[in-house]
């Protein structure tokens, strides 16, 4: 996927987002989302344990980390799809703790899912229309009287058509979403999220399963979101993409934030390299020194 990326124009990176040295939990000049002490355990496993993190406004922030680092769980917690054991987090200064998912979305924090949740037996256009908020016709009684919602629905349709054109899905608007390819579903899901004019868009692995031919247009769309004044937070594995479009990178490992910073600098960070490649030990497990192996075993026994 990564090597095919040939940017049309070098994206304009936002800088000066943080206050002081970049370190896990660093203060931002203008944070849109702040999480404090968010912790989630499953049985004996700690999935997320984030002490403090701030997401800068009107920037593209990438949340990266190896498999099982707790990125998606953290996403779920932030958007009300899961409940943390402890912690507090706020969006534009309003606390989100105990707010159900649908209300989080109404506040302007819209997310997508790692495995696309396109509504297969609805047409592409219906999928899009569903994304619009404050629809008069979504009330059961007003829905009965078309004259009350027809005009608004037409406006929504125009807007949806506009977005579909941008995402090159307009030719498919009357098809069932189920008939789209994996990549097109990702596009649809992103386009649908935009229907509600969100302030913060959270994308969970927007590139996963996307045909390489589509990755460029996806990237452009994400950059476009920032250009339109939105804030983007995304989880991604593709490092090329992260370096290419992200203004800020937050690295998670074992549920914690281990590093934050500018994408190019973060990649040099020892903690990040360790998170990805495994901790850099002085000892070599492949060494022939059996005494050494014994030492590690003792260490392990001590820990128990």
């Amino acid at each position, binding site marked *: 996927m990564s090597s095919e990326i040939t940017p049309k124009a070098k994206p304009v990176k936002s800088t000066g987002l943080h206050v002081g040295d970049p370190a896990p939990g660093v203060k931002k000049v203008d944070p849109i989302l702040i999480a404090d002490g968010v912790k989630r355990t*499953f*049985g004996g*496993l700690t999935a997320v344990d984030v002490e403090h993190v701030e997401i800068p406004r009107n920037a593209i922030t990438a949340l990266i980390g190896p498999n*099982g680092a707790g990125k998606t769980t953290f996403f779920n917690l932030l958007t009300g799809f899961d409940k943390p054991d402890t912690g507090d987090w706020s969006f534009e200064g309003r606390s989100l703790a105990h707010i159900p998912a649908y209300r989080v979305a109404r506040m302007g924090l819209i997310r997508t899912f790692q495995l696309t949740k396109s509504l297969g037996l609805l047409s592409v256009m219906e999928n899009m229309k569903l994304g619009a908020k404050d629809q008069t016709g979504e009330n059961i009684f007003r829905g009965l009287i078309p004259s009350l919602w027809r005009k608004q629905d037409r406006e929504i349709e125009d807007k949806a058509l506009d977005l579909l054109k941008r995402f090159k899905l307009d030719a498919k608007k009357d098809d069932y979403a189920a008939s789209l390819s994996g990549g097109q579903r990702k596009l649809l899901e992103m386009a649908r999220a935009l229907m509600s004019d969100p302030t913060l868009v959270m994308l969970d692995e927007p590139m996963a399963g996307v045909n390489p031919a589509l990755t460029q247009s996806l990237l452009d769309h994400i950059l476009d979101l920032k250009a339109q004044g939105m804030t983007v937070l995304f989880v991604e594995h593709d490092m090329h993409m992260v370096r290419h479009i992200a203004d800020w990178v937050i690295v998670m490992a074992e549920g914690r934030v281990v590093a934050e910073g500018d994408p190019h600098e973060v990649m040099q960070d020892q903690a990040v390299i360790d998170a990805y490649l495994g901790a850099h030990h002085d000892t070599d497990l492949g060494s022939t020194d059996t005494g050494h192996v014994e030492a590690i075993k003792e260490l392990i026994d001590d820990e128990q």
Partner: protein
Amino acid sequence: MEPTRTVPTRSRGRWLILLGILISALTLSGIAASPAVADEGGTDDPAAEEEYEYFFTGNVQFEGEALEGVLITVEGNGFDAETETDADGRWTIGVPEKAEYEVTLDQDTLPEGVVVLEGQDTVTAEFGLTKRKAVNFFLGEGQRVTVNYFDQVVQRVVSGLNFGLLLALAAIGLSLIFGTTGLSNFAHAELITFGALMVLTFGVNLAWPLWLAIIVALVLSAALGWTLDAALWKPLRRRGVGLIQLMIVSIGLSLALRYTYQFFYGGSTSQLPGATLPSDIRFGAVALSWVDLVSMGVSIVVLLAVAFFLLRTRIGKATRAVSDNAPLASASGIDVDRVIRIVWVLGALLAGLAGILWAYFRPGVSWDMGFQILLLVFAAVTLGGLGTAFGALVGSLIVGLFVEVSTLWLPSDMKYVGALVILIVVLLFRPQGILGRRERIG
């Protein structure tokens, strides 16, 4: 069809009752599903009734002795009439049309120490092909008024345990099937009925010795489970039919099987040999019949055997493994389809046994007897936690005890309702059931 009995009266109390029914219907309770009716075709020569063409008749006896002066009433279709038994214990009431009536035996007119079997003092009776319908009441020895409250509680608890144990037999099978395949099997009711019907066929109709009839019934039950999986469920699993579709298929199967039973066995209730033995074995305040004792004994032994199977044998452990994680079981070299086949055979066998015991507990064998307790079995499984075999056992005992003990303060015909209400309440507070765990792995 004029209701002659009930004249509209605008009393405040009635209105409150009405409101109570409408609003808190869920917290109230009702009658046991169709009570047993003994249909023996034609009984010995009844006194002719000139007035009406159709008539009910019966003979009230206790331990071979005719009971005289017992009040019998017939109600229904806007008609009601009553009569008393004659010196031979016989009674006859004519009715104007061929329809469904309720026949009630007034317990207060029975001699001291004799009672009608629990909840069966009123019987819904319908005419078959003849114009004469025999209605029998099953009498037993009992102390209706004289038993003190504590003794009643003890008696109910023992009875509840008995009922709970037989429910558990059915519930564990249902739970195992759910655990290994994800199917909520509504046709489990028909597996229950099947066992009892087979004993009826071989033990009564063909008059084989009871022990042999029971063995044959159990073998056939197991064979039915095998056949259902081989002919229906396995092919559907192969097709990748979704779980909700499978559940609806099981409803269709339930309907088809149930009415097939009715087709062949008719709508009446029959008794298995020894079903009406007196409760003459006393343990302190508790009076039991031999059948009760054997039933409880068999339940306990079989449940222990099932527990042994699940906990100690290789296949049993594999069954639990498949319930836990079927792909991993397959990756361990377990043939998942074979385990599921075994579960179906075991589940059907246990259901068949539960059916036989249920036939003695009710007592009576009828085409829809399994369906009458299906919801209780579901309640037991859900209460214990969907898919956990031991949860099903615990849930069954709770349901069984609740159903029986609640008759102390609820009318006996409302006892099933209480258990279903409990189910709803438990789901409200602990949706995973009592023993269910929410485990997330990895």
